[in-house]
């Protein structure tokens, strides 16, 4: 079904270079009359990273960090303002829209809210076979079997029991599995999982995470896993990038970033996440202030107004993302101090 390239596949499935997305704020008639300049929200402001074939790459950050926008840019649900996304060696900017539709089979999405992303008037079977109808129209007699197969893989068994049910007739955990089956049934290469289990209860999360990892290995998938939940990310991501106000502040192997974060923002995040152990109560104070407005981000390093170690240089010069140890980079003028 899928035609995998056989020789010399590049190590990176996705390469993202200097990606920017600025959203213009709706300017009203009055702005035109007063000839005010257009105002932009710099949701993503120059982000670069690679996603290696077969890995789970996490993008984490708080609200307004740009993580969801980056996900949408990577699979071309949005056009970037600047920068490139190279998917399996192909620059997506050069792909015509008809071709892009074919490429979509290779990049699928799992969204946060299964109830919102399933059509309430489509049966589970219709939802799962929908992608097959679009991408493999000539193969319609096999769609039901293919769907059944995938439903068994995600644990919707027996498939016949679920196939003609509607989303409201099944449980939340089962809906989550439908969304996973629907994304994987076209055998994509890349799966964008945007807070895929944030809605699921603690007691069912572990099973869903385990399912996602198993399917990844079985179907040779690569995940871009977007989350605000650093504790959960620990159990699935191989590498992780930490975003702050549209910038990548740190990137590296998950264990490196978690055990010795090199950016003061990452350090603050890591101490802020509550630990489920009353013997390990946090004593460190949290950084001052809240995330600034992305319309008018702070000069220099965007974290400097809240940073406990900020110096003069931090408000004047924007730090570059630098590799400080193999595979571990941070964008801080003083990151060496934490090595």
């Amino acid at each position, binding site marked *: 079904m899928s035609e995998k390239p056989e020789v010399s596949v590049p190590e990176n499935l996705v390469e993202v270079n200097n990606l920017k997305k600025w959203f213009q704020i709706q300017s009203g008639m009055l702005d035109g009359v007063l000839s005010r300049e257009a105002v932009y929200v710099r949701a993503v402001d120059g982000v670069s990273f690679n996603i290696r074939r077969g890995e789970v790459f996490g993008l984490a950050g*708080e*609200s307004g960090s740009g993580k969801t926008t980056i996900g949408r840019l990577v699979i071309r649900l949005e056009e970037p303002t600047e920068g490139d996304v190279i998917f399996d060696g192909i620059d997506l900017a050069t792909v015509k829209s008809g071709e892009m539709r074919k490429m979509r089979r290779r990049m699928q999405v799992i969204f946060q809210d299964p109830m919102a992303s399933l059509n309430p008037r489509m049966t589970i079977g219709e939802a799962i076979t929908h992608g097959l109808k679009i991408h493999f129209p000539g193969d319609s007699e096999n769609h039901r079997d293919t769907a059944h197969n995938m439903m068994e893989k995600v644990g919707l068994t027996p498939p016949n029991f679920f196939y003609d049910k509607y989303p409201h007739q099944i*449980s*939340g*955990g089962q809906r989550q599995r439908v969304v996973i089956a629907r994304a994987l049934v076209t055998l994509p290469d890349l799966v964008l999982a945007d807070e895929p289990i944030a809605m699921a*209860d*603690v*007691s*069912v*999360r*572990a*099973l869903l*995470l*385990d399912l996602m990892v198993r399917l990844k290995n079985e179907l040779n998938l690569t995940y871009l896993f977007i989350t*605000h*939940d*650093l*504790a*959960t990310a*620990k*159990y699935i991501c191989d590498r992780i990038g930490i975003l702050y106000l549209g910038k990548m502040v740190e990137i590296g192997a998950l*264990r490196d970033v*978690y*055990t010795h974060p090199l950016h003061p923002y990452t350090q*603050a*995040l*890591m*101490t*802020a*996440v*509550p*630990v*489920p*152990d*009353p*013997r*390990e*109560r*946090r004593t460190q*104070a*949290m*950084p001052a202030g*809240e*995330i600034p407005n992305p319309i008018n981000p702070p000069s220099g390093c965007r974290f400097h107004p809240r940073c406990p170690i900020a110096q003069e240089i931090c408000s004047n010069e924007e730090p570059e993302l630098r590799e400080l140890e193999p595979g571990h980079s941070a964008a801080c003028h003083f990151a060496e101090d934490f090595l």
Partner: protein
Amino acid sequence: MTNNQTSEPDILYKIRNLVVEYHTRGVVVTAVDHVDLDIQRGEVLGLVGESGCGKSTLGKALMRMIEPPGVIAGGKLWFDGTELLSLPEKEMREWRGSKISMIFQDPMTSLNPVQRVDEHIIETIKVHEPETKKSAALERAQSLFERLGIQKRRLNDYPHQLSGGMRQRTMVSLGLSLNADLIIADEATTSLDVIVEAKLVDQLEEIRKEFWVTILLITHNIALVAQIADRIAVMYAGKIVEIGLVNDVFLDPLHPYTQGLLQSVPNIKFDEREELFKMPGEPPSLSNPPPGCRFHPRCPRVMPICSQVEPQLLEISPDRLVDCWLYQDLPEGYESTTEVEK
């Protein structure tokens, strides 16, 4: 514990046999099912459970804020010696806000979008204390804002001009402005970013000591409870299944649900246990809960009795209550053999 006396704990809110039902389309959903709970004066009590377990309904019932089709179908609510369910609604309105204050997940729904924050706080104070002068009320609002780390000029703002963290702190200051004895925080930190959440938690901790206020923290975030609460109550399918001091419950959970739940909570720290426990199944529907113990279909230690007779929430050691047959005497005719694991 805040109460270091060994004598009887000072109980602020005594909840007995509370039943809350929702009646929809001929179906009765028992969201809170015969709950007994004591909230001790000055403590932070964490009430945890998964979605649909009834924890928010329980919180609202404590304020008598259950709206149709919901109804408080039974029980007693003794708040500081007064039984609230027998109070006329008019009197109850006085209690809300002044004695018990509630903070919700989304403060935008509790704040008036077309009223400046200072007007809201002053109005609240004037409603409950008509004798207080407007200037005095404003002064109180200002000092609370400063205490909670918000510049007092922000009192002139409308709610939408404040950040999410400031809105939640505004709600906290509303509760404090009337000297409420109990603050019920229902997922109050859930929509906040993790650093802002951590700061709000620090502030709740500070005001608890400073204002001697009691906090009921209703949350699905179990790690947060480990960080701030003195005691924890675990709810499952409308019932409280375990209550104890956080140290005791986290280090040695007794109810099989608590055991599984705590092992499935992700921990950002690297330690020896790098696998989450994969609990089978999902929480049951409250309109058709399983017979006997509601957790028995998912329980790894289920016994024959569990599917037939409901256990009771019993005190099995000081400060420790568990609702499980493993810890109580079985009626005649039942054996305590654990069935073969599924």
